[in-house]
């Protein structure tokens, strides 16, 4: 067993009711390096200051109670070893703060109700049964549930909410945790209102198209839920499967981008903007919505052209790759788009080849899953292997 060591914790203290400003408090605790930051905080509380506020329960990364920021990074206090935390400390002291984007109740305890749970409730976090409800249990192909496994791994700790950069500037954003929860039902074949759920989240100005693609929630999540990937899957379902042209230009932007790359091989920025607002065709820029935006951004465009930043010729005509290469890009489009179902690989479920060296031969011998079965169409539908996965 490893020897007991000294670790110094710098804890953010704040009591809104006291009227005093927040301050830092340092305590040196003694524990084995593999013990958790949570155990360190609890020791400080027991030995030095019983008034330290921390919420915790299971100490095993299951209950999701002890979400905090450690050295600026969100995570679970019970799931972070002291030696690892020390390694990422700036000055040899492990810094623990309450999570962000939520009001502090006391010290390391934040108000999850005010933000996190409110947003979870906003996405109707329960199954809406298809009618008629079967007399006995609902039978679904086992494999279809694989599709939602990743979002089901969420323990509602709020780490992703804490550091969401969209929520930082737009507190109304539905956010990563609630979006992952929404996908859990949108992806469930038993749910009766998948399209309604999608339309709701696509049309909401603070819904799925308000995510800024910053990957913060992917790094924050202690359970590998990758909420941003679930948001992208919601967008795919909303836009491509249900053709929802939302009022936020989300789907139009995506469609225009994809079409322009097919037409040019490279991005034609000057066409992308008006099409995102006005519609995915050359005529998009003449749509009133596009006109409004163009007028608004005219001063910026004029400045850019005057300063030689934007060359009017490239801006109008765009840049293309050589003809033969453009053909090859278009062939790729045609081939991929001719498939009946989208092909996706979710590494959360399939894992990496290297994870199990030699496993491939073994699986062939034992007749269980092969790699091929790990690649599945997006829907967890009949014909898909149990290991088959829809993707990130």
């Amino acid at each position, binding site marked *: 067993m490893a020897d007991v060591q000294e670790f110094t914790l710098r804890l953010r203290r704040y009591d809104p009711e006291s009227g005093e400003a927040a301050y830092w408090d340092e305590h040196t605790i003694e524990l084995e390096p593999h013990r958790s930051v949570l155990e360190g905080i609890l020791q400080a509380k027991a030995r030095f200051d019983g008034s330290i506020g921390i919420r915790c329960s299971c100490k095993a990364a299951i209950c999701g109670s002890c979400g905090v920021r450690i050295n600026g990074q969100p995570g679970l206090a019970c799931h972070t070893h002291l030696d690892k935390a020390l390694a990422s400390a700036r000055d040899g002291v492990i810094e623990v703060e309450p999570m962000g984007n939520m009001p502090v109740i006391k010290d390391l305890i934040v108000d999850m109700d005010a933000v996190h749970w409110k947003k979870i409730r906003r996405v109707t976090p329960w199954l809406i049964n298809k009618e008629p409800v079967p007399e006995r249990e609902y039978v679904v192909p086992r494999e279809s549930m694989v599709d939602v496994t990743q979002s089901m791994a969420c323990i509602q700790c709020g780490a992703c909410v804490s550091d969401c950069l969209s929520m930082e500037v737009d507190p109304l954003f539905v956010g990563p945790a609630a979006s992952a929860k929404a996908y859990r039902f949108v992806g469930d074949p038993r749910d009766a209102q998948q399209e309604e759920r999608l339309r709701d989240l696509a049309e909401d100005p603070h819904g799925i198209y308000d995510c800024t693609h910053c990957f913060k929630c992917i790094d924050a999540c202690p359970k590998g839920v990758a909420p941003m990937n679930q948001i992208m899957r919601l967008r*795919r379902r909303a*836009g491509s499967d249900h053709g929802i042209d939302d009022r936020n230009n989300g789907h139009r932007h995506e469609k225009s981008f*994809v079409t322009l790359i097919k037409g040019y091989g490279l991005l034609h920025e000057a066409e992308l903007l008006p099409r995102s607002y006005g519609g995915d065709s050359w005529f998009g820029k003449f749509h009133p919505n596009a006109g409004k935006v163009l007028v608004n951004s005219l001063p910026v465009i004029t400045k850019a052209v005057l300063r030689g930043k934007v060359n009017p010729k490239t801006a109008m005509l765009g840049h293309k790759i050589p003809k033969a290469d453009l053909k090859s890009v278009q062939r790729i489009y045609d081939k991929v788009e001719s498939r009946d179902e989208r092909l996706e690989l979710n590494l959360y479920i399939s894992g990496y080849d290297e994870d199990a060296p030699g496993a491939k031969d073994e699986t062939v011998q034992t007749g269980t899953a092969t790699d091929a079965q790990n690649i599945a169409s997006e829907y967890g539908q009949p014909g898909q292997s149990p290991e088959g996965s829809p993707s990130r």
Partner: protein
Amino acid sequence: MKVAYWPGCVSRGFTPELHGSMAAIAPLLDIELIELDRGNCCGAGVIAEHNQELADTLNARTFALAQQTGHMMMNICSTCQGSQTECQERLDANAEYRAIINENLAEDGLEYTKGDTVNKNLLWLLVEDYGLENLRAKVKRPLTNLKVGPFYGCYIVRPEDRLGIDAEKPRDTYMSLLIEALGGTVIEYAGMHKCCGFPIITMNETASLKQAGTHLGDAKDADADCLVTPCPLCHLNLDLQQPLAERVVGRELDLPVLHLPQLIGLALGLSPKELGLNRHVVKPTSVIDWSTAVVAGVGAGEGGW
């Protein structure tokens, strides 16, 4: 050294000064650029959002073209780095999947081989392959007293696992190392690893500009003379849109934003004009004042611009 050079779309479209400044510094650094002018858009995460297989095949195509050169691939765009690495992660993870993607490429006689593509942003390449000592030796005009705030762009710092960021390769600190190697003063500020807001500019303009404006304001408050970014998309929101961002955050910002090769070029002795700094929306007055002051100080011949 020779690299298979992937400039991306935006460096040849709305930020031509980026492509131009890279071309200007490459010979000074003895880096030979084999331009992948047959390569296609990385999809910037948007194509992957639409259809993963399409994004993976398109990027596998660019990787395959890079592999034909026999040299490592270098990009100058955080967003290209992130989107391409995401596709590469899937291509490398699963042999069966790779075979399907390669089948999509077969008609053009292209093939992606696992292990043959090393794709690094200029920033990573300079620190890990070129070496900061080498770079330091090339500096003609150290950025003394120029206070530079780094702005990375999300795609080049997250997710950490996928991008290979760890204690051994602290790629999220490389900009500071580089600025120091060029003789400049690093200004660290709250928003340097945050999002510029560009991806939602057409979906939620206020939130998008608030992000850009907030980070610019934070850097300004930390006393930065300018920002430097390896991402042309961040540059669009931080520079091109700065006048609009000022309106949203209700304060004057007037903070010049440089592309990474431009900052390097200044230290290598190129003039602001040669680096296309005159093409920015926000006039890089502070940087030009600095460069003319330095030139006047050492009595060199050619002035700023």
